[in-house]
């Protein structure tokens, strides 16, 4: 899910003051540390994602928002 889509879903749910920050790159080497990613998926990612993008496949973010009073 893209960041703007995430923010849009929050706004459509009724949240306000949406803030996205704390961006950190998330690469295949990081993904490989999580047991929910199987070795087969990790290998598939290594085989299909261009080498110069493999260290930043996704971005870790912090998303904050508020339910209006």
């Amino acid at each position, binding site marked *: 899910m893209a960041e703007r889509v995430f923010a849009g*879903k929050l706004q459509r749910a009724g949240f306000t003051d949406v803030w996205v920050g704390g961006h950190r790159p998330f690469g295949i080497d990081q*993904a490989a540390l*999580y*047991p929910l*990613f199987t070795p087969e*998926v990790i290998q*598939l990612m290594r085989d299909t994602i261009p080498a110069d993008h493999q260290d930043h496949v996704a971005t*870790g973010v*912090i*998303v904050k928002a508020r339910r209006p009073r």
Partner: protein
Amino acid sequence: MARDLMFQQEIKETVQRAYAAIATGAGETVARRHYNDHELAEVPPGAVQWALGVGNPVRYARLESGQAVVDVGSGGGIDTILAARRVGPEGRAVGLDVLEEMCERGRRHAAQAGVEGWTEFRQGEMEGIPLPDESVDMAISNGVLNLSARKSRALAEIFRVLRPGGRICMADLTVEGELPPEVANDHSAWAG
């Protein structure tokens, strides 16, 4: 529409099957990427071992003593326990997880941390949170919303359980651009 619903159910079953099958969390290496020494010292080793998150929502949540907080997708309880420490015995921390065995793990870790008196774990889905309307001040989650096939529904549920003025603080992964179709269409990739 029917195909969409089948697809959502397929994703849900794939994610839950993969989640139920794991024998451990991502471990200390991943935990050290997101939590500092002080934070790691506040939780028992088992909760650190079972960490599966992608960030540290509690650090950004600015929780206050006496608040009620729900951790949506609490796993082994690392963030629930950290949140429980921030809200203290005058507050309340609820961990929500789709797997009862994970809730059991969270209860064990909360007891080891000494926060069990004001911390509970409930089995349930983020798309149907088993809490009353307007019952919490803060909702946190860590790498969980992305696993839902019904993200808008999950966000609507979080909105429902928050009190007016309540806040949400989530760590998650975003993806800009397109993943290769081989990855995007792989069932196992949904679970990650």
